[in-house]
């Protein structure tokens, strides 16, 4: 080796500039004594990790967006939001709010992104599964209820199946999302009055008889609503 040792601080600073992009890749390559093409590999990798986190968490929004527009959009996002945490998914957390800030997509697609981040939070919800007394019901602790100005569920299902689907018209809706205890898979449903009723019963800790008396419904109808919510994994049954 001729010349002085390269300083650790300089390596960190130049690598940081290189992976953030722009003309600094060439300046960094010169400072580090490496080939720009090889240094660009790391730039692609580092940015690609954030891009992949966005793609993984917002697959439906991506499917609803033209590929070129999506690529440009995510590039802008990566510039604005580099990763700061060892949890890579955290790098995608700001995407829905950023979309709103920059008004980069239309309102239905922004709402779809909000739904997808809700699903991501459900997927990673750390709450332990509760012990449910035999014969009783409990709310699924991962349950999230999202209010949206668009009927997102049919649209999201169509996109998930790879079907072309235009954005839905404005219509207030509720989305119920949770993780199934049996296989830890995240599911979502359009809010249904019977399920919302069942959630209320379980949340308030009512018995079937109490719920029937308060709602004026037959006990069999209350029980059917509760069983339906269990089948949808919104409630857990002991």
């Amino acid at each position: 080796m001729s010349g002085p040792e390269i300083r650790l601080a300089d390596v960190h600073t130049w690598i940081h500039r290189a992976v953030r992009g722009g003309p600094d890749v060439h300046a960094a390559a010169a400072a580090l004594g490496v080939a720009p093409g090889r240094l660009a590999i790391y730039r692609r990798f580092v940015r690609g990790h954030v891009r992949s986190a966005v793609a993984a968490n917002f697959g439906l929004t991506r499917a609803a967006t033209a590929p070129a527009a999506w690529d440009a959009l995510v590039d802008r996002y990566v510039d604005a939001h580099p990763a700061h945490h060892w949890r890579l998914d955290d790098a995608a957390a700001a995407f829905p709010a950023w979309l709103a800030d920059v008004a980069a997509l239309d309102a239905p697609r922004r709402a779809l992104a909000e739904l997808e981040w809700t699903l991501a939070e459900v997927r990673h919800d750390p709450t332990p599964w509760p012990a449910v007394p035999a014969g009783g019901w409990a709310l699924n602790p991962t349950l999230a209820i999202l209010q949206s100005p668009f009927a997102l569920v049919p649209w999201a299902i169509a996109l998930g199946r790879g079907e072309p689907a235009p954005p839905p018209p404005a219509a207030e809706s509720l989305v119920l999302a949770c993780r199934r205890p049996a296989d830890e898979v995240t599911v979502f449903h359009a809010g249904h009055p019977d399920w919302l009723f069942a959630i209320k019963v379980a949340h308030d800790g009512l018995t079937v008889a109490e719920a029937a008396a308060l709602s004026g419904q037959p006990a069999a109808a209350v029980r059917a609503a509760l069983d339906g919510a269990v089948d949808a994994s919104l409630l857990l049954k002991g």
Partner: protein
Amino acid sequence: MPPAASTDPPRPQAAGPCLGHGIGLRRAHWPALLDDPQGLAPAAGVDFFELLTENHLSPGPGRRAARRAAARRPIVLHGTALNIGGLDPLDRDYLAAVAALAHDTGARWISDHLCFSGAHGEAFHDLIPVPRTVEALDHVSRRIDAVRGALPDVPFALENPSYYIQYAGQPMDELTFWQRLIDRTGVRLLLDINNVYVNCANHPGGDPDAFVDGLPAHAVQQIHLAGHTDLGDVIIDTHGAPMIDPVVALYQRVLRRIGPVSTLFEWDNDLPALPVLLAENARARAAAQAVLGPAGPGGRL
């Protein structure tokens, strides 16, 4: 008549114990490997699981899967976020979470990479090579001591990562840096055979045989095998293909020298169906048995 004395020189031994041949546990394979009512049948031929540390640190499904895996096979933890070569302070919350996961799963050892994976408060989620300088050697040595202080109950190893650049102003070659680091700190080595091949192919003068022959045998805790992608002007360590024959041959060269070592076949990108992964694991086992026999001394193959 006394038995004839062996003419073979004593073989240096790797850092034990040898757990056999394992695979990385990936979410797509959880149902087959962790939920099968037959218990261990789908994981036949898998002696241990390596968990990607960051996937199991938080409470929730990842942690529950880690516990289920630990009930079935020995566990080792392999991380990417330690940032041992970084200048940002070590993340104490991260280290505490790793310690808790290691305790939860009874991890036999934990590992990460000799690299830096963040700078100036940003996380790269990639493995950037540490310059092979005296300053970096001092810095990494101090951080190894700090990690051991935070994780006193579990052996700690560093992997030789693949790298695509070599900085100007590096007074040491890679082998010398590793020799000095191991000599100074006693850190254990997770020897990635594919990375040795890739690095030697990507940089002029690379000699994979000389590199593996020069490593201190007593430090080798585990071996990684993997596939890569040859783009012509550069080989990328993609972990997305079967291993190639020269990597298998290099693996066998290491085993001839140091004996049985816990070996893991890595496949992370374009994850195949479980039988494909198990076939590569079986291929690695057969390669080891071809060198050391059906069961090596002091360890399972």
